[in-house]
């Protein structure tokens, strides 16, 4: 079955064209990443200074302000988010993996999918209606709660996935030795899957760390340090947004610096998470 030279050459030509296009697509995608990171790095690094990390924002038009309160504010919000999202996601995921074979589990998974797809701004609106308005103030708690809600589906799904990956032989061995179900789950299965679970939780946290929209309606912003947990607070993403759309060059510089800090933290968490996961498996790879 020898193909005629002519048509074969044409087919090879088409192949070469298509694969070149595919290669260009890949190169552009990598190129975008490098451009994005590089651009932010260049603009952000020149704007970074000790002032940026230790000063509060300065009045409009005056130089020398910083984002110290925004960095701390983001940390506090994420702490609240973790306290809301991790227990629900982690323990809920245990239910789905260990007990959930039935219709109820299906609905929970479906609800988590829906929740995952809800645009973050809609979550912000809901939390505004449920918490900010009735209680009468914007707060770190409201902002953290909104972000925590967004963490739940990712935490839930990753916990379930990694618990399912634990071989049943481990469960059966534990049960055969007489351990109660709950001990089996908490002392044997969960520790076996903990690496993947932690990865998933870390990724969930990193994802919400960059969210801006829900914070606009829940934590507002703050010129000063935010006392406690029930006052409005500055946060990195909101500050970046506010400064980016303004006309002041000094604010633009700070926006770049903020973008660099945020990006570093988020990417750092992602890389850490993936290294954790890949390190655990015996597979080769990045």
């Amino acid at each position, binding site marked *: 079955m020898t193909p005629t030279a002519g048509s074969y050459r044409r087919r090879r030509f088409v192949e070469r064209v298509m694969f070149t296009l595919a290669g260009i697509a890949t190169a552009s995608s990598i190129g975008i990443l490098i451009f994005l990171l590089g651009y932010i790095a260049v603009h952000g690094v020149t704007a970074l200074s000790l002032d940026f990390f230790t000063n509060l924002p300065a009045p409009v038009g005056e130089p020398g302000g910083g984002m110290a309160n925004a960095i701390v504010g983001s940390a506090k919000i994420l702490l609240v988010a973790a306290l809301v999202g991790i227990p629900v996601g982690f323990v809920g995921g245990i239910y789905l993996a260990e007990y959930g074979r039935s219709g109820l589990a299906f609905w929970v998974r479906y609800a988590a999918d829906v929740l995952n797809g809800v645009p973050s701004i809609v*979550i912000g609106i809901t939390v505004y209606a449920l918490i900010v308005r009735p209680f009468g103030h914007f707060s770190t708690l409201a902002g953290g709660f909104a972000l925590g809600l967004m963490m*739940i589906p990712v935490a839930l799904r990753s916990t379930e996935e990694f618990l399912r990956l634990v071989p049943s032989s481990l469960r059966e061995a534990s049960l055969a030795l007489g351990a109660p179900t709950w001990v089996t789950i908490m002392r044997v299965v969960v520790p076996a899957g903990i690496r993947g679970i932690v990865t998933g939780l870390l990724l969930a946290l990193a994802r919400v760390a960059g969210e801006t929209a829900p914070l606009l309606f829940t934590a507002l912003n703050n010129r000063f340090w935010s006392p406690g947990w029930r006052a409005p607070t500055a946060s990195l993403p909101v500050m970046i947004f506010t400064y980016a759309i303004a006309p002041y060059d000094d604010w633009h510089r700070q926006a770049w610096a903020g973008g660099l800090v*945020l990006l570093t933290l988020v990417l750092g968490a992602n890389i850490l998470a993936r290294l954790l996961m890949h390190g655990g498996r015996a597979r080769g790879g990045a």
Partner: protein
Amino acid sequence: MEALGAIGVRREAKLPVRPRRVGDFLLRTGSLGLALSVLAITATIATVLFVQSRQARVAFGWPFLWTSVWDPVALRFGALPFIYGTVMTTFLALAIAVPVGLGAAICLAELLPLRIADGLTFLIELLVAVPSVVYGLVGVFVLVPAMRGLETTIQGALGFIPLFSGPIYGVGLLTASVLLAVMVVPFIIAVSREVLLAVPETQREAALALGATRWEMVRHVVLPYARAGILGSIFLALARALGETMAVTMVIGNRPEVSASLFAPAYTMAAVLANEFTEATDDVYLSALVEVALVLFAITVVVNGIARLLIGRVPRPGAANT
């Protein structure tokens, strides 16, 4: 058997029964409770949206979805401009992102050696993690001026086509679509690559054995096999694009108007919510905005549902952060 049973009975009789049951009971109900709370949360969101939009739904009815007016003074609202803007930007973004994403996925799944491809995929997946506001930042300072130049060039050559007519601002529908495309391409690449890798080698080898070139193998065997998964990845990207707020509002021009030109400023549902929600001073105005949120919510539920059906098992966070 009997012996084992006897041993079992004896062991059970020896060990205290109460603590075991309590522990089991606690874990089971506790985890069930928290799992149910997820249902409750989602139901609450849907309810809040439905209830708070009542005033607008009653006032404007179904025509709300296809009327193009947004007048806070006369209190007449129709969401068509936002639905149009959302649909158009998403559609255009996918039109750009799908060929590029699929092409890259093919390259990474079929052409490159595994270790290099794994490394590159790892890098591309990092793009998924970049926050929206950072994309917006680069969009405002880099993309907008670049698009202004590009649009002027296009209008110079093709300005007679209505799609490319009208004044050029730099911000607008096309700019937002390009930015969205950049944001969703990594999704498509990551998920599609996984799907392509899952196609059995036997299929590939069979095609090659029949004399197909590698491209023909990909086009006629691998892609059709992976079709459902790839479509699913597209829907996932679609869902993400629909909800994008910050990056879009920074580059779209924020104008509630349906226009024929791609260069015109536009508005999306998410963007109008971000801009106007805290300020709607009339109850009807606020209710109209919540109705916009309800529509957005409904659309994302449907799209996610379709994606779920197509993809089946949604990939774990390690592969693509969905």
